[in-house]
């Protein structure tokens, strides 16, 4: 397991979420920490889409994500859309109970690949 990057996605401050990218076997894991709300949605989408643009298997690790709103869900979904359009494997993993509840209520498992644990 090699940490590739431990820096905020947007150096210079103002980040609502923190993200860290690391390679695990064939997968690139993007660990996201903080609150995925309207303020952070653009940053979350850009972070996930950047990973999708560079790798063939991307897992979003949400185990340190405290909260996700509708805007956050849309960001994840649009990153998954980009992955689908470019034939990149994309999965969401390791959600906390509160975040999982939001995903479950929205029925996100019908359109996204969701794993309890990291797929690698």
């Amino acid at each position: 397991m090699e940490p590739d990057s431990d820096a905020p996605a947007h150096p210079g401050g103002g980040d609502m979420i923190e993200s860290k990218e690391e390679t695990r076997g064939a997968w690139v894991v993007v660990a996201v920490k903080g609150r995925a709300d309207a303020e952070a949605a653009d940053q979350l989408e850009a972070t996930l889409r950047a990973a999708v643009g560079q790798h063939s298997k991307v897992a979003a690790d949400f185990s340190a994500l405290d909260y996700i709103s509708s805007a956050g869900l849309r960001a994840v979904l649009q990153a998954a859309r980009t992955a689908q359009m470019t034939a990149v494997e994309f999965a969401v993993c390791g959600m906390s109970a509160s975040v999982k509840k939001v995903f479950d209520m929205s029925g996100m498992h019908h359109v996204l690949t969701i794993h309890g644990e990291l797929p690698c």
Partner: protein
Amino acid sequence: MLTMLEEVVLLAVDEQTGGLRSTREFGTAYALVGALFFDLALARKIDTDTETIHIVDREPTGNAMLDRVMAGMADKPQLTTVRDWIEEIFLRRDDLEGEALGSLIGQGVLRHEKTKRLWIIDVERFPIVNNRPQRYVKARLAQAILTDDIPDTRDIMLVSIAEQCGLLSYVLSDTQLNSRQQRIQTLCNLETISRKVSDAIAGLDASRQQSIGKIV
């Protein structure tokens, strides 16, 4: 670009006659409120979670209708849930459909015709002047429903509002709609605002059934 509310109202215009169509009179009013909230969400002015709704940016959008709703929300901080706000806007009886039609006329998409039936009854029609926007809306709905691709955010919202207004039957055949019912429900369920509009419509239907039961 048309707003979500304008796109749904445009979908309700019969391309042959210019008449307005809807199959769910009361449900449509709730669904149009949902469209208004989607427009605010797309403008990054509000955000929701599983129950609550809140303003995240108070700067005006420049759209009079959206700014009026946002100002109303700021004036009533005691209303915090999505359901509360759907009911609040519904009860205000704002003419959302009329304002959207006016905007579509102003943008050169529709024109307004007023005629008399039997020399007495006013009949309003909105013939389509530019049919490209309506075709575009229908094409996006068909693409979102008939494929398994993850749709764009706007198209997910559009499917849910069109479904709640009972307008999908003007876009797809019964066979297509029946075979893709699960897909439609999946897309409708993705957004909190859609789920709460559905709850509000179900609540309205239940209270109407109760009222009919008491009368009978």
